[in-house]
């Protein structure tokens, strides 16, 4: 069983954050919601491992 990694793991956090906001720039609320949903699906597929995905869902609930 693998655990979701909840320690810092993003190479350049500030760059990533700026990219994330950038991707949403100029989008309506509806378009942003759709983009977020697609992004979650893309990332989830990349992870694949169902234990990690379940762990991520739990972690996101705070």
């Amino acid at each position: 069983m693998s655990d979701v990694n909840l320690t810092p793991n993003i190479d350049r956090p500030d760059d990533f954050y700026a990219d994330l906001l950038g991707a949403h720039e100029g989008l309506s609320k509806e378009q942003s919601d759709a983009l977020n949903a697609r992004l979650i699906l893309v990332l989830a597929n990349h992870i694949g491992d169902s234990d990690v995905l379940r762990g991520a869902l739990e972690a996101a609930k705070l």
Partner: protein
Amino acid sequence: MLDDRYQLAFKAYPYQRSPDQDAKTPVRHPVVIMGGGPIGVATALDLGRQGIRAIVLDDHEGVGMGSRAICFAKRSLEIADRYGCAGPMLEKGVVWNVGKVFYEDRNVFEFNLLPEDGHKFPAFINMQQPYFEQFMIDRVRELQAKGAPIELRGKNRVDSVEMKEDHVVIHVMTLEGPYTIEADWLIGADGANSPLRGMLGLEFEGRVFQDSFLIADIKMKGDASFPTERWFWFEPPFKSGASTLLHKQPDDVWRIDFQIGWDVDRKEEMKEENIRARLDAMLGPDIEYEMVWSSIYTFQCKRMDRFREGRALFAGDSAHQVSPFGARGANSGMQDVDNLGWKLGLVLSSKAPETLLDSYDFERGHGADENILNSTRATDFITPKSEISKIFRNAVLNLSEKHAFARPLVNSGRLSVPCTYDGSSLNSVDGLNAGPLRTRPGSSCPDAPLADGFLLPELGDDFVILAIDAEAPGAFEQSGLNVRVVSVSSVDDPSGQLAGRYLGEAHSAVYLIRPDQHVAARFEHFCEASMRAALRRASGQEA
């Protein structure tokens, strides 16, 4: 007093007076089946073939009009084959493999079912439900001519029942007045609205979905035609429904389902001009067609808590109801019958204790849960219930056009496959560790080609020992159970598919297979003591 609640497609069992109606005291029968739909008739076939008297009572005189079920899965055909009526189904049915998914105005992807080869039957056939029922009734007639003790009594409505310790008293209404019979066992195959459930005060719980679908079965005129594929639209541009399904049936008939929402005026929607308006928007103005059948349905996923109540056993829609996505209604009912028939046969001939029937409740309850889970998930995808579920649904569809990864997430119905009875008390511990997972104890036997013919027709009806590249006795008997032995070796398996499905990494295997073609136990070699223990377990003689 005995008015038809629906029109008939085929008048298959007209009312005839039975001597039971003139008997001084109620006649006792081993099995009475309430309901002559597909599940009731299949139950009669299963029991009648075993020489058990089975009386079907139905308040109509034949098969209901309108196709309802159209997708019949391989497992249902295999069961029908065991009963001897799969031939005409295969001949009549339409085989399809390609499915297309559309989102708005785009064909986002297409798939091929690519069914595994080396099976006698295709993954599915499409065929109007009345044909499925009629072919089984034809088989009943053939068996009756050979003396099978089956009776189909039309216009015999069960009005009330009295549950006794060891039988059920059944009060029946006919055109010529009431009469009473008794049954050791009563099978409730009386459909989703099961009056029997009501008579016994039993609950039917689950989820009702707030949506409705308009079905139109149409026959194309002239040379207008669509390919033999399954087309599913999410949010189609022609706006005739929030989703739309197009599927081919025999006789040049196409099934179209429009998702039309919850708050609809049924009467208004069912007017031919309004149905035609939806169809014309979808097909374009130039296509001419004739309307064969239409209906509006809502759907729910519900099940009874237990499928056995004293001397009553429930099968088919009376026991569990699923939404139509995934074609699990009639298909799962056929598996109920497959599971129940042999158990009831053993109990009635005193070869197994009555408690064997509790395994019917466990195994088919497991099947019902699996079907409800699958069909609920499909329903949630097709008819998203919240804003966010719709956002995710549409995200999946948009991604599916570009990226293969998203396609398995698209759920327009996961098509019915037989359930594996993991955890059943009839299973023995897996004794073939190197064996494939798909044939572990509890599994439905996958078919495989043999040098001449197929494996499944060699199995079933009785307990069978399947010995693959292994020594086994010529026959086997225990407490009145006669076990046939089927021995095969690599010579019988030129394609290697049998070995792939039943041996895996093992060099030999000995399977104990139940009369419903499910695996009860498997070992690497034949060992008499283990086989006897497995047989005792599988027939409910040992917990």
